[in-house]
């Protein structure tokens, strides 16, 4: 569950705000696209969710917790409820596929036994079981992105945030990635996909939020890309 209540974010005084009075509600288990031109406020939206930055005005709620009110010490625990998929993958080059996914569990203190049990399951889900012992540079872009997805869901987050997950991929691979995300969504995880990929948005027929100059312009439940290029 994600809720923005009249959220405004300005980075510097006298400059126009990155987000202007945005209110929205994303329910548990939804699949939502967030679209908009560069500079429309998409990155700010994600950073607010991760509490990398704080809202200037208004409040952000995740699973009924007011994120703006979290102390610095609580931020890591907020992030454990969310999985994040980046456009540039951000895998550790010196670790194998298995280790990259296991790493996310090690960090939050899961036992060796739990790790050995869960990592193969997650890799199986993204269809990478056979590449478990390969290193990121030996994989194609689509495969790397699937490792990232496995890493993002390994700790069972309730929300999965994908920042341009298909930005560096060809159309065919992009569809593969999106269908993996759909599968994850079917199992109950809320998914927010920030994207430029008009074709995918139009074919998926999911809810689409459109940001324009920091304002939430369109909230379309049946999925059409919200602005003309």
């Amino acid at each position: 569950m994600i809720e923005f209540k009249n959220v405004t974010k300005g980075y510097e005084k006298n400059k126009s705000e990155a987000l202007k009075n945005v209110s929205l509600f994303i329910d548990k288990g939804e699949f939502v696209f967030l679209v908009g031109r560069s500079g429309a406020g998409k990155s700010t939206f994600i950073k607010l969710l991760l509490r990398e930055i704080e809202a200037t005005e208004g409040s952000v709620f995740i699973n009924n917790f007011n994120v703006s009110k979290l102390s610095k010490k609580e931020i890591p625990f907020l992030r454990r409820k969310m999985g994040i998929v980046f456009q540039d993958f951000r895998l550790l080059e010196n670790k194998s596929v298995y280790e990259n996914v296991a790493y996310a569990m090690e960090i939050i203190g899961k036992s060796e036994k739990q790790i050995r049990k869960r990592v193969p399951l997650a890799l199986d889900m993204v269809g990478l079981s056979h590449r478990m012992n390969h290193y990121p540079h030996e994989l194609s872009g689509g495969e790397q992105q699937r490792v990232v997805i496995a890493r993002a869901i390994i700790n069972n987050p309730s929300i999965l945030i994908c920042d341009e997950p298909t930005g560096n991929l060809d159309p065919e691979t992009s569809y593969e990635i999106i269908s993996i995300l759909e599968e994850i969504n079917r199992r109950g995880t809320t998914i927010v996909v920030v994207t430029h990929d008009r074709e995918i948005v139009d074919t998926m027929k999911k809810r689409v939020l459109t940001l324009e100059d920091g304002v939430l312009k369109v909230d379309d439940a049946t999925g059409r890309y919200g602005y003309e290029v």
Partner: protein
Amino acid sequence: MKFSSIKTMPKNVIRDTMKSIERNNLMSIASVLSVIAALIILGIFLILTINVQEVTKDVESKLELKIFLQENFTDTQKETIQQALEKSDLIENVTFESSAEALDNFKSSLEDYAPLLNGYNSENNPMPASFIVRVTDPKDMEDVQTLAMSFKDQGVEYVRYGQEYVEALVSFNKFTNTLSIVVLAVLSMISIFIIYNTIKLTVFARRREIGIMKYVGATNAYIRAPFILEGTLLGLIGAIVAFLIIRITYYYILGLVGGNLFLPVDASLASPNAVMGQLIFFFLIYGGFIGAIGSVFAIRKFLDV
């Protein structure tokens, strides 16, 4: 941090730390060397301080205060003064030396020249009777003197002790202490700065990893741990090597000098084993501490994501 994460942490942390030291081996060696250099200089000052303290204590414990009595003191006066002295907290023990004993002691201290005093006997004994007082703390010498002088007209003639000597020792002791603290402060800053730079390189090399850790929900303590461990380890390695170098050198020099300390006073140095015990204790704490401090400063900036 939850209990479960503490349990599995050490293994990952130790693994990451070892990898990191390996990766930065040149910088790591440089910072260990700088810790060694700093600690050797510090160690020299520390040994000096410990020994000066020991000599001071030794000399001080041998210092005594002599309260000379008037020629014609009465037994009542003697009793009153002795009781007053024995009651005081400042005084450890009091011995009475009659004029006859004083003459005998003087004679025996002259050894071969004792016959010089042959003309003196109990009839014309020039030596006054006295109380020989050992004080609990040499700093209280003056107070004890004041106490004794309060009996000025009730039997006490005058009081004598090595005032200038005590003061000189105490001030030399203070001087070496201050010098050690200044040296400690300057060298600490240098060592912390060097370790800070080493760890900053490590942090910089792993900044991507730190970013990922933050997004996956690692706590700051978890992220910090390997870096602090790395810094602490560098400090500890430096401390141990510096200690070994100092230990070997110190015993070597003691062996060369033998028992001859060239000291103008009759006092012994601190026992080498005790000095080394203090030194390794101090070095380990100090080495670990500056390593940890340097690392904490180095990583602080990178944690704000």
